[in-house]
């Protein structure tokens, strides 16, 4: 004989277990913090006009993106090993299917700009939009913080593009530095700090204790 509250508790635990089992985090908190700090340093470098060339600006940010992607991959691999799961898990396969199209689109736009005369005030909002879309492409199984970060990048991309167009800021390196620092810098640091010690980063479901 059991009570109705036992049945409710069992159903609640089943729901929680199913939700947590389908979550896959594509961006680790340490990577996000590193991304934020390096982005701020790079933005400061541009702000102080150590970076005069538009192409050099693009290559610097591409290099940072590649380094941080490698770091994120290493950390995801380490986490998977710690949990005793394969690195290329079903969660990762699902994530890759979602993130590859927006990443390819962003890379293509960058390449097209590099082939011609790149305009930073066009490229930067597009980077924000494609990055936001990349994060949102995992929203079906990502924790809510990833969805919020993706939405923030989409909003920032739209706002940056609008401001750059209205104020005619083509070639303004200070605007480029400020917009990159505020988004890829501060947003990543905020995300990293908020998720570092939150429950979302905990692994395992603790089912044995829960049920």
């Amino acid at each position: 004989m059991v009570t109705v509250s036992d049945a409710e508790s069992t159903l609640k635990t089943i729901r929680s277990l199913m939700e947590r089992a389908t979550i896959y985090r594509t961006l680790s908190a340490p990577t996000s913090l590193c991304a934020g700090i390096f982005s701020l340093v790079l933005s400061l470098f541009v702000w102080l006009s150590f970076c005069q060339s538009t192409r050099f600006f693009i290559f610097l940010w591409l290099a940072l993106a590649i380094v941080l992607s490698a770091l994120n991959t290493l950390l995801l691999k380490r986490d998977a090993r710690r949990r005793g799961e394969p690195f290329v898990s079903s969660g990762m396969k699902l994530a890759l299917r979602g993130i590859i199209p927006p990443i390819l689109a962003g890379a293509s736009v960058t390449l097209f700009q590099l082939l011609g005369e790149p305009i930073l005030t066009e490229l930067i909002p597009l980077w924000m939009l494609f990055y936001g879309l990349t994060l949102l492409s995992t929203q079906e199984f990502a924790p809510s913080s990833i969805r919020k970060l993706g939405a923030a990048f989409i909003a920032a991309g739209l706002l940056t593009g609008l401001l750059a167009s209205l104020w005619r800021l083509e070639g303004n390196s200070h605007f480029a530095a400020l917009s990159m620092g505020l988004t890829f810098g501060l947003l990543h640091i905020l995300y990293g700090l908020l998720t570092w010690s939150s429950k979302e980063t905990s692994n395992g479901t603790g089912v044995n204790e829960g049920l």
Partner: protein
Amino acid sequence: MLDFDKLDKLIHEKGRLSIMTLLASRAEWPFQELKAQLNMSDGNLITHLRTLHQAGYVSLTKEKLERPQTRYALTAKGRSAFQEYLQLLEQIIQTGKGA
């Protein structure tokens, strides 16, 4: 207070209920991922999986990649039993609230 006699005892055991819940959330699960998610020992997990397999609730596929891997999935019978179990839980709650 309500009688849980109608509930499938095979599923209602907490370890097996966890396994059935995870198996219902994805098409299939490798043994190592199940183990990591549930924090169960190899022996405990294998015993529960064997019980569910013998009841016809779970199917298994053995693969030989770099190292042997066994993947588990719910059978149609298992999925139907799990759905009935959930429906019964909901009925118990509704009946209890209505009383």
